[in-house]
């Protein structure tokens, strides 16, 4: 999978490395900004209420 991505990036090795870095950063950004905030209430750390309103279901 990673080899496939590497082969399909344009340019020489340096350009590919730079593009890979950008791709990694983009993935991390999407994860931190959208995926993890969505996933976190599904885990038990955030249950602090007694009426279940704030609890994960």
């Amino acid at each position: 999978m990673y080899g496939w991505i590497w082969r399909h990036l344009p340019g020489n090795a340096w350009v590919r490395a730079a593009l890979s870095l950008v791709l990694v950063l983009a993935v991390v950004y999407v994860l931190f900004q959208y995926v993890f905030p969505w996933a976190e209430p599904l885990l038990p750390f955030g249950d602090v209420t007694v009426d279940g309103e704030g609890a994960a279901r």
Partner: protein
Amino acid sequence: MRVLVRTFSELCITIGALIVLFVVHLLFWTGIEADRATAGEIGSLRADWAAKAPEPGSAPAPGPTTAAYEPGEPFAVMHIPRFGKDWDRPVLQGTEPGVLRRGLGHYASTGRLGATGNFAVAGHRRTHGDPFKDFPELRPGDEVVLTDGTTWFTYRIANRPHRTVPGDIGVIEPVPRPLRREVAPFDEPGRYLTLTTCEPEWGSSHRLVVWAHLDATHPVTDGKPPALRS
């Protein structure tokens, strides 16, 4: 065969990296975001209050505000000297996950700050800035000080943190009625405060609860209440 093994290895590495990133997010990033959010909420509240403050020498401010709390909006700042002299957190309306990311959450179904009834507040113990990390350190007699911009409300804690189950809704009733009746702190209606968080620290099997009663009120024009001086 080689392709299979390689793909499987890459998948394992990816999942491992995902888990590490998620832990970093939980332990580190939510704290940074929460610090920024709480500072922002407190800042906007104080700016709001400063704008509304009566001119010196004009008629005294009217009594406690009675405007409804806006869902998801901050309306008070809480100080708990036991958690540190500089510990302050905004109190927002509602206890949804999105609200608790930005500060402490007021159970929408419970009483107003300083009014007769039970003003109940929930907060994260871990992650999102760890606001209630030291919750088990609370002791009877500790002060919980809140301000809504016009009044300082000093509540005094009545019990050591009580451990209960998540469905124990009675603890936030106007006169708290926990499942274990013998730990109920109050017998008759009054001006009460309830704080809840999770127990154990990283789990969700139980909740920790403390109750407090309103001990004193001071207008903000008189300066900080005794509990916050020193």
